[in-house]
C-alpha cells in the first residue's frame, strides 16, 4: 500500500532570503530522486520556518517498479573466437553480470555487434530505498553560501541539529554526521522545551501547532499581514504594503505577533525615504501612513512569539529605532549644512572603478557626454545638463548616503533643493539613476532623460572597454539592467538617436586610460549587447522571433526606428496581403539570391511582362525610398505585395535562366532590383 513520507530537517536559524528557493529545490529534488528510483508518488509539499525545512510526499509506492537492465559488454569479435567459442573476455563479462554465457544476446550498436546481458531486476521495497534517497536529497540542496561546523564535512546553510523522517508509521533511519534521524521534532525556540515525540504525520502538524510553530509560510504571511493591518488600523493609520518585507518577516518568525511602536514626531523633519529605509532595512518594521499618505510617527514590528510581555518588546524596539533616527537626524542636519557643490569636490578621492579612474573623472565624462546626447536627442538645454551632471554624484559624499546607499539620487534631489539649485537640476539628479530595478519608473524630465542615458552609456562603455561583460548569472555591475534601462528609455520616449555615434563618443571619454578593447570592438560588442536586450523586450511584448530575426538582420543604429520596423512587420504578418507579399519575395529572391547586379539592359527584354516590370521599377523604387524615409513601413510592404500579379505574370511568361547570357542578366537584374527593395527592410528569408 502506498504511504506518505515526512522529512523535517531541523536547523539553526536559516537566512530568510534562502528559504523560498530552498523549499522549491527540496520539492524538485524529492520528485526527481523518487522518479529515478522508480518510486511513484502523489502530491509533494514543502514548508519552512527559520528552524526547519519540511517535506511531505504523499502516497509513495510500496515498492520500486521492476526494471530491465541492458548492459553492453565487449564486441562480439573479441568475445567469440573464430570457432564460435567464448573468449576469455566473453566469459569474464558473463561472470561479472552473473548471467550464463549462452544466455547473453548479441545486438548491433552503430554497425558493430556487441554482447549484451539482459537482466530483469526486481524492485526493492521503498523503505529500503528511502534512507539513501533522503540523504541524497539533503546533500543536493545548495545555498548561495554554505558552511561547515564542528569537526564535520557536511555543508549546509546553517548547522543541522535534528532530522525527523517517517514513512507511513515507521522511521526512516539514516545519519548526517552525528545526527541520527528519529521521530521527534522541536517546537518554538522560546515557547517550548525539549524534544517532542511524533507518532504519525498528522500528529506532527498537531504537535508543531501546539508548540507555537506555524509551519506553513503562506499561513504565517497571511497572519502577519492581517495583524499588521489591524495594529496599524488601531493606531489610525495604514501599513506600507511591501511584499519583499512581508516575505522576509515571514521567514524570521515561527509564531508572529504584531505590535505598534511610536517615535517622536520631531524625527518627521527627516525626509520620509530616510525614515522608511531605516525602519525597513535596519529593523524590518512596517512604516505606517495616515489617510493623506503622510508618515505617522509610528511603526509596526512583528515579534517571534506571543503577546506575553509585549510591552517590554515594544519599549525595547522603540528605543532602538530612536537611536537609529537620532543618527539619521544628525546626518541630515550635518549634510544640509554643506552645499552639493562642496560635497562634489570630494569626488576626486573616490574611485569609480580601480581601472576607470575616480568619480570626479566620471563626472567630467558625464558632462561632456550629456552635452552630446542632449544635442542628439534635441532634448535639454546645455546649462542645465552641465549643472546636473556636475552634481549628480555629489550625494555619494554625504553622511546619509554613506549610511543608506540605496538613497543615492533621492538624497541628491533633497540636497540640491536645499542648495537652491534649479528644480530641473534637482529632478535630473534623482532621475539619472532611473530605472533602478525591473518595473521602476523611467525618467520623465528632459534633463533627467538625457542624464540617465548618459550615466548608463558611460557605465556600460567603461566596463566593455576593459572587458567586463556579464556571463551566465554573473553580472556584478548590473550591466544587463542598465542596458535594458537604456532600451526602455529610448523606446518609451521615442528617441531617434544614432547609438553607434553615442557609443563612439562615450569611448572617447575613456581613451586616456589603459583599455583592453579597441574603440571599434567595444562599440560593436556594446551595440550587440544592447540589441540583445531589445530582442528580449520585443519577445516579451509578443513579437514572434522570426520577425525579430528578420528585422534585426538589417539593424540600424537608431533603436527606435528598428523597433518600429519590427512592430510594423509583425502587424503586416497578419494582413490579408501578407501571402502575396511572401510569394513575391520568394519568387524574386530565390532566383536572384546569387546574383549581384541590379543592372538591366532594356534593349534585350522581349516579353511584355518583363518590359512592364522594368517600366514600373523606377517609380516603385522612388516610392519605397520615400516611405522608408518617413518610416512608413506598412506602405512600403503593401507596395511590394501589390506586385504579385505582375510578378506572377512575369514567371508564367518567361524563363529566367535562359541560355542567352544578356537576356538572363537583364531578367536577373529586374529580380535583384525588386529583391533589394525587400532586403532594405528585413531579411525575409528568416520569416517562417
Amino acid at each position, binding site marked *: 500500500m502506498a504511504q506518505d513520507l515526512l522529512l523535517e530537517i531541523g536547523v539553526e536559524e536559516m537566512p*530568510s532570503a534562502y528559504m523560498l528557493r530552498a523549499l522549491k529545490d527540496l520539492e524538485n529534488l524529492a520528485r526527481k530522486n523518487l522518479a529515478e528510483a522508480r518510486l511513484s508518488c502523489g502530491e509533494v509539499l514543502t514548508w519552512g520556518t527559520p528552524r526547519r525545512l519540511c517535506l511531505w510526499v504523499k502516497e509513495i509506492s510500496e515498492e520500486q517498479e521492476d526494471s530491465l537492465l541492458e548492459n553492453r559488454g565487449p564486441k562480439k569479435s573479441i568475445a567469440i573466437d573464430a570457432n564460435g567459442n567464448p573468449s576469455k573476455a566473453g566469459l569474464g563479462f558473463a561472470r561479472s553480470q552473473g548471467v550464463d554465457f549462452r544466455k547473453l544476446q548479441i545486438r548491433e550498436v552503430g554497425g558493430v555487434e556487441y554482447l549484451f546481458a539482459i537482466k530483469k531486476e526486481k524492485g526493492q521495497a521503498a523503505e529500503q530505498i528511502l534512507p539513501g534517497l533522503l540523504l541524497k536529497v539533503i546533500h543536493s540542496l545548495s545555498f548561495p*553560501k554554505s558552511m561547515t561546523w*564542528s*569537526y564535520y564535512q557536511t555543508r549546509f546553510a546553517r*548547522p543541522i541539529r535534528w532530522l525527523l523522517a517517517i514513512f507511513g508509521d515507521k522511521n526512516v533511519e539514516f545519519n548526517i554526521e552525528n545526527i541520527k534521524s528519529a521521530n521527534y521534532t522541536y517546537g518554538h525556540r*522560546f515557547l517550548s522545551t525539549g524534544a517532542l515525540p511524533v507518532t504519525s504525520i498528522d500528529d506532527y502538524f498537531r504537535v508543531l501547532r501546539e508548540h507555537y510553530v506555524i509551519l506553513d509560510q503562506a499561513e504565517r504571511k497571511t497572519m502577519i499581514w492581517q495583524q499588521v493591518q489591524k495594529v496599524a488600523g488601531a493606531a489610525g493609520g495604514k501599513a506600507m504594503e511591501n511584499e519583499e518585507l512581508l516575505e522576509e518577516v515571514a521567514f524570521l518568525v515561527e509564531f508572529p505577533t504584531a505590535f505598534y511602536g511610536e517615535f517622536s514626531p520631531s524625527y518627521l523633519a527627516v525626509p520620509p525615504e530616510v525614515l522608511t529605509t531605516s525602519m525597513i532595512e535596519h529593523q524590518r518594521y512596517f512604516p505606517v501612513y495616515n489617510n493623506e499618505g503622510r508618515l505617522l510617527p509610528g511603526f509596526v514590528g512583528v515579534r517571534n512569539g506571543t503577546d506575553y510581555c509585549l510591552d517590554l518588546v515594544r519599549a525595547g524596539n522603540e528605543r532602538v529605532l530612536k537611536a537609529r533616527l537620532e543618527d539619521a537626524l544628525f546626518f541630515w542636519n550635518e549634510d544640509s549644512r554643506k552645499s552639493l557643490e562642496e560635497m562634489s569636490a570630494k569626488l576626486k578621492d573616490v*574611485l569609480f572603478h580601480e581601472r576607470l579612474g575616480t568619480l570626479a573623472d566620471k563626472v567630467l565624462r558625464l558632462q561632456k557626454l550629456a552635452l552630446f546626447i542632449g544635442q542628439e536627442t534635441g532634448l535639454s538645454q546645455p546649462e542645465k545638463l552641465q549643472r546636473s551632471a556636475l552634481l549628480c554624484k555629489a550625494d555619494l559624499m554625504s553622511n546619509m548616503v554613506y549610511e543608506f546607499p540605496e538613497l543615492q539620487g533621492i538624497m541628491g534631489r533633497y540636497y540640491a533643493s536645499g542648495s537652491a539649485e534649479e528644480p530641473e537640476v534637482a529632478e535630473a539628479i534623482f532621475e539619472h539613476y532611473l530605472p533602478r530595478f525591473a518595473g521602476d519608473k523611467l525618467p520623465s524630465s528632459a534633463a533627467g532623460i538625457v542624464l540617465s542615458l548618459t550615466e548608463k552609456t558611460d557605465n556600460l562603455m567603461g566596463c566593455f572597454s576593459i572587458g567586463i561583460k556579464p556571463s551566465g548569472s554573473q553580472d556584478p555591475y548590473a550591466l544587463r539592467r542598465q542596458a535594458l534601462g537604456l532600451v526602455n528609455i529610448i523606446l518609451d520616449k521615442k528617441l531617434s538617436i544614432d547609438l553607434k555615434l553615442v557609443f563612439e563618443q562615450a569611448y572617447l571619454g575613456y581613451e586616456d586610460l589603459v583599455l583592453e578593447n579597441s574603440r571599434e570592438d567595444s562599440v560593436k560588442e556594446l551595440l550587440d549587447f544592447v540589441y540583445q536586450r531589445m530582442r528580449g523586450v520585443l519577445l516579451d511584448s509578443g513579437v514572434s522571433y522570426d520577425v525579430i530575426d528578420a528585422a534585426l538582420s538589417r539593424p540600424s543604429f537608431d533603436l527606435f526606428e528598428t523597433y518600429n520596423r519590427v512592430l510594423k512587420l509583425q502587424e503586416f504578418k497578419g494582413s490579408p496581403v501578407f501571402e502575396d507579399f511572401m510569394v513575391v519575395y520568394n519568387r524574386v529572391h530565390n532566383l536572384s539570391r546569387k546574383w549581384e547586379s541590379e543592372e538591366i539592359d532594356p534593349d534585350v527584354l522581349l516579353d511584355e511582362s518583363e518590359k512592364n516590370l522594368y517600366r514600373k521599377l523606377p517609380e516603385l523604387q522612388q516610392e519605397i525610398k520615400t516611405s522608408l524615409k518617413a518610416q512608413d513601413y506598412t506602405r512600403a510592404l503593401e507596395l511590394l505585395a501589390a506586385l504579385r500579379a505582375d510578378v506572377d505574370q512575369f514567371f508564367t511568361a518567361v524563363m529566367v535562366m535562359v541560355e542567352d547570357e544578356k537576356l538572363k542578366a537583364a531578367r536577373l537584374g529586374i529580380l535583384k532590383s525588386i529583391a533589394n527593395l525587400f532586403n532594405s527592410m528585413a531579411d525575409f528569408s528568416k520569416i517562417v
Partner: protein
Amino acid sequence: MNFQELILRLHNFWGQQGCIIQQPYDVEKGAGTMNPATFLRALGPEPWKVAYVEPSRRPTDGRYGENPNRLQHYYQYQVILKPSPDNVIDLYLASLRDLGIEPEKHDIRLVEDNWESPTLGAWGLGWEIWLDGMEITQFTYFQQCGGFDCLPVSAEITYGIERIAMYIQNKESVFDIEWVDGISYADVHHQAEVDYSHYNFEAADVGALTSMFNICEEEAVRVAERQLVQPAYDYVLKCSHLFNLLDARGAISVTERTAYIGRVRNLARMVAREYLEQRKRLNYPLLKDKNLREQLIIEEEVL
C-alpha cells in the same frame, strides 16, 4: 546590574562551561577576534575554549564623546568554543538568562549576518543576535582564518557589553552606564574619548604613522622568518592599528586603502602559516583526546 557585575557574571558563566578566562591582549586591536587567543587558536586541529574581555579600538568611530552610541574605544566580550558544540545557541541563551535577560519575555532573533575581515583573511557565517530589535551579539562560525580553512570550526560569540548594559540599566547613553556604585562609564572613559578623537582625527602625525607602519611591517616579516610566531603577530596587530589611525586621519585614498589592506592580510597569512607549522612541530599538545589524535594523524598521512 552594574557593568562590572555583568563582566563578572559572564566570566563566571563561561568559566563554568570549561572556558579559560584569559585577560585582554596587550596590543591595540580593532576587535576581540584579533586577540591571538582567537586568531591563532582558531587555526589547526586543537580544541580550545576561551572567554575574555577585549578593549577594542575603532579610531574612525570617535565622536569626541558627544554621541550616546558611538565610541572609538569600547569593550567586547569574546567567547571561542572550538569545536563548536551542538548546543552552542542554547549555551548562549543560558548566558543571557544569567544576565537577567529572560528570552521568553523578549523578542530574541538570529538574523543572518556574514562576517568577514579582509585584513585578517578571515570569514565566517552566522548571525547578529537581536534583543527586542537591538543587535547585542555577533555570532560566527569561523570558516577561514588567515586564508586557511578552519577544521574544526570554532563558534565565536562576541557580546556588545555596553549595549547590553545600557539595556539592562535602561540608559540612553553609553556614558551613563553605571560601572560600579557611583562611578559611571563616563567617569572612566569620557575624557579619553575626547582626547583620542582629537588625536585620531586631527593630531596624529601622518608621516610618523606611515613610517611606523613600514617599520612594523618589516619587523613582522623579519621576526616571522625566525619562526617567532606571536612576536611576529604583535607587529601585524600594530600594522592593523596604524592603518586604522591613518584611515581615521583621512590620509589614505581609496586606491591606497586596498593596497594597505592587502599588505596587512599578507602579514596575517604569513603568521597563520607559521603558527600552523609550529603547532605541528609541537605535535599539537592540546590534542589530548587519543582517538582524535589518531584520526588526525591518519588524515594527515592521507593528505
